[in-house]
């Protein structure tokens, strides 16, 4: 089956292994992911921090293109893009005047009919039923499922999972043979967009997350957001400096873990691209 796909900028750059793993996983379940033709950046934190109309116009253009290209559903693996697209669709549905203003800004018709799926929803809907029978190499590790912020909040708009103690990733990880741990930082913020401008704060916030996972015996941290990944993985030297200890627990995308379990080639899943070596696997 075919589904629309919005990779977003991170997945084309520093988080390319997330893109690679989603794309490597799909064929195991006879799914073809088709990129939205001529997609643009969603504007991320920068746009909504400084200009509301811009922060709505950029995602609306993406959704309008998907509609024009006949897509009913789009898979959006980046939690930040997923959040911005969903918030925009919600705000424009709530306010007709705003919808008119934004569609005039982008010079394109927009209805708001495309269903936006995050990576967990995509797996739940199109992969989960066939997952057990496809497993060739169970992912037999203790894992800390880290959801971060933008996958689950704001609940009123995203309506995804439980806001304080989500379990959807834990359920999927159990299916592929993992033991998810109970821990305290499932939905705490990693510091997100402050990675470059205030690396010190990211080291602290991400450090607390990594430490709790490691202290409770997690052998890997499972994520579904490129920003969470780069903060927990690429910022590990700063994190370890903040923690004054050497924490070596690797950070793995949900799609990489499932990919390994169904027998995908690790190099096709981009595991070699992580900064914290994935040695135990």
């Amino acid at each position, binding site marked *: 089956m075919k589904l629309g796909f919005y990779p977003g*900028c*991170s997945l*084309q*750059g*520093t988080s*390319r292994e997330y893109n690679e793993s989603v794309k490597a996983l799909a064929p195991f379940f006879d799914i073809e992911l088709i990129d939205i033709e*001529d*997609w*643009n*950046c969603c*504007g*991320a*934190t*920068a*746009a*909504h*921090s*400084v*200009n*509301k*109309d*811009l*922060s709505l*116009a*950029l995602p609306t*253009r993406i959704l309008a293109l998907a509609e024009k290209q006949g897509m009913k559903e789009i898979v959006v693996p980046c939690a930040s893009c997923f959040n911005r697209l969903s918030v925009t669709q919600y705000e424009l549905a709530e306010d007709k005047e705003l919808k008119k203003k934004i569609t005039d*800004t*982008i*010079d394109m018709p927009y209805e708001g009919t495309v269903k936006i799926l995050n990576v967990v929803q995509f797996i739940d809907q199109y992969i989960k039923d066939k997952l057990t029978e496809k497993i060739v190499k169970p992912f037999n590790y203790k894992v800390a499922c880290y959801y971060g*912020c*933008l996958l689950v*909040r*704001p*609940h*009123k708009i995203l309506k995804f999972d439980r*806001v*304080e103690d989500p379990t959807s990733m834990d359920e999927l990880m159990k299916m592929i043979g993992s033991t998810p741990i109970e821990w305290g930082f499932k*939905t*705490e*913020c990693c*510091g*997100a*967009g*402050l990675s*470059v*401008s*205030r*690396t010190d*704060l990211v080291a602290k*916030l991400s450090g607390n997350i990594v430490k709790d996972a490691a202290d409770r015996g997690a052998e890997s941290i499972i994520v579904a957001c490129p920003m969470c990944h780069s903060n927990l993985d*690429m910022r590990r030297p700063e994190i370890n400096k903040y923690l004054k200890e050497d924490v070596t627990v690797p950070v793995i995308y949900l799609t990489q873990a499932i990919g390994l379990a169904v027998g995908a080639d690790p190099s096709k899943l981009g595991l*070699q*691209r*992580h*900064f914290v070596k994935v040695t135990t696997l």
Partner: protein
Amino acid sequence: MTTNHAITSRIQQATEVDVDLCYQCGKCTAGCVLADDMEFPSSYLIRLLQTNKEENYSKVLKSNTIWLCLNCENCIGRCPKEVDIPRLMDYLRTESIKRKCVSPKAKPILSFHKSFLNSIRYTGKLNEINLIAEFKLRTMRLWQDVKLVPSMLIKGKLKFLPETVKNRKNIIRIFNRTIKNTK
């Protein structure tokens, strides 16, 4: 005694956020991961707005609080009155730019946002190298993260040629119609 609601009414008109709903339970501040690093935390910020005093409003707009807010949405997730603090923060940041009173401590954060938007303004897609180059020039933090470059190259994480959308005019027009200036 008549009560002046000029500031809170203006905020409500622009954002639909009614700050008067807040009864200072403090759950937002308790759940805020950066509360300790802010000049004052979110519940205090709301209280300052509730006073409707220009001096307090100005204190809010000049604070680093509005720029440190990560929009992680934890506060609204826990607010018993669903006061949309992240939405309020977006508005306050915009106002702070308009009044040219951005906290000096928050300049690197704003520089990052501006560099980000400039990177997508003409190409439609973010190019991380352009973003970082502009950020370094804006902040003069020339040596920051230089150590990361060799391993990023080996891991194939840096893209030198910016990808562009085909309909660049469309993107430029969207910028011109909304933000105009990202200098």
